[in-house]
């Protein structure tokens, strides 16, 4: 059996090259691969293309906002290129307005479906989402069953950085509650998937096959998150 368990986050992200396309899950605090993002910042890869629902959050926890602040990113594919309220503006917006970072603004469901298509070998799909809006500009339109749709293409990545609650040594994963969000989709759409795991990594067979959320075949490397302060954990942030 191939060994997928790595002893440190630095080791797990060591090979990520400049220019890599990377998927980052997370929706609100749960499910963000904070330790892997921190390791990626330490590692120093630049000119990265990111695929992520948002571009970071307010507060002092490690997330993709830190990666963007350190100017490692050339392009960001996301559902928010501006914060809902100007008071919540992050570094990304400044960089984007100055043209220092390129962005593709994608409706969240289209983003999720494009990632799914990337992992599922679907060449492209028609969706009604975005018809009549700026998002549809320049896209192919088609009326299907009396309703207008636009054509959207899959998203794949070189790497996905993932966070799971539980794993076995083969790489089968379980998420807890809304931690799941984009994690299973991104694990499937990336060539190499690296996971930070919240609990001790189990022996194969200790996770019920009916209750696996990400099958082991999508997982390449895993690191157990150490206790704080060495490990970075979610915490309520009310800044």
């Amino acid at each position: 059996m191939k060994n997928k368990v790595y002893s440190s986050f630095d080791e797990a992200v060591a090979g990520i090259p400049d220019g890599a396309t990377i998927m980052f899950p997370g929706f609100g605090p749960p499910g963000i691969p904070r330790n892997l993002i921190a390791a990626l910042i330490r590692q120093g890869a630049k000119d990265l293309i990111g695929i992520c629902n948002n571009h970071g959050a307010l507060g002092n926890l490690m997330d993709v906002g830190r990666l963007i602040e350190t100017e490692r990113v050339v392009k960001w594919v996301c559902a928010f290129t501006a914060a809902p309220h100007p008071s919540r503006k992050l570094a990304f917006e400044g960089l984007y307005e100055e043209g220092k970072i390129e962005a593709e603004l994608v409706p969240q469901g289209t983003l999720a479906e494009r990632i799914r298509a990337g992992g599922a070998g679907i060449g492209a799909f028609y969706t009604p989402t975005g018809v009549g809006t700026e998002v549809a500009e320049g896209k192919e339109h088609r009326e299907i069953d009396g309703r207008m749709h636009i054509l959207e293409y899959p998203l794949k990545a070189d790497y996905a950085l993932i966070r799971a609650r539980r794993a076995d040594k083969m790489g089968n994963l379980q998420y807890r509650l809304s931690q799941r969000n984009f994690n299973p989709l991104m694990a499937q759409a990336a060539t190499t998937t690296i996971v930070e795991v919240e609990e001790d990594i189990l022996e194969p067979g200790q996770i019920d096959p009916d209750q696996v959320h990400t099958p082991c075949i999508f997982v390449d490397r895993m690191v157990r998150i150490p206790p704080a302060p060495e490990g970075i954990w979610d915490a309520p942030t009310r800044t």
Partner: protein
Amino acid sequence: MEKTPLDRQAMCNRLAMEFQDGWVVNLGIGMPTLCSNYDFGDKQIIFHSENGVIGYGPLAAEGEEDLHLVNASSQYVTIATGAAIVHHADSFAIIRGGHLDATVLGAYEVAENGDFANYKTAGRKGGGIGGAMDLAVGAKQVFIAMEHSTREGEPRLLQRCNLPVTAVSVVTKVVTTLGLFEVTPEGFKLMEIAPSFTTDDVQAQTGATLIIPDNLVEFNA
């Protein structure tokens, strides 16, 4: 009598009164989340969130947050009895696939043809679409809750949106600080009016011609 606009909870209560037993409802970021404070009595409403939570309950009490569970506004919520979790693509399959009975969203502008704008403000390069475009085309009913006018006193109910639209011809009902409106093929119909306001008051603050039905009633929620 002083003219008091409706408060946000009353506005959201009024939309929540529209929800029927067994409905699956998605509440947008901000004001719409107040709909979940309404007392639904015997009606069972299932609240869906973009991040794949099907069945969440009230906000978690301070200090009792479950760090693995937030709603679409990133608020720590509780899980409802009989909830289910799916991933993000399955969550939007629910939305886009027509399995939501209603969504309640905030907006900057709503047009009399049912267009609305809520993701991008004037002159800004970036926008925040989030799940709004999917919710708008997917939900069977699209309800909007918003202030009747901007801070500058400009109307938000318009003939046509000025801002980039989130979706075209989808809004069915709007509640504002001045009352409840239905989007009809002929335009905005004022269904219920805030106490102490006259139809002339409301028309004066509206950027489209209102239809005033004979059975107009006072807003009560």
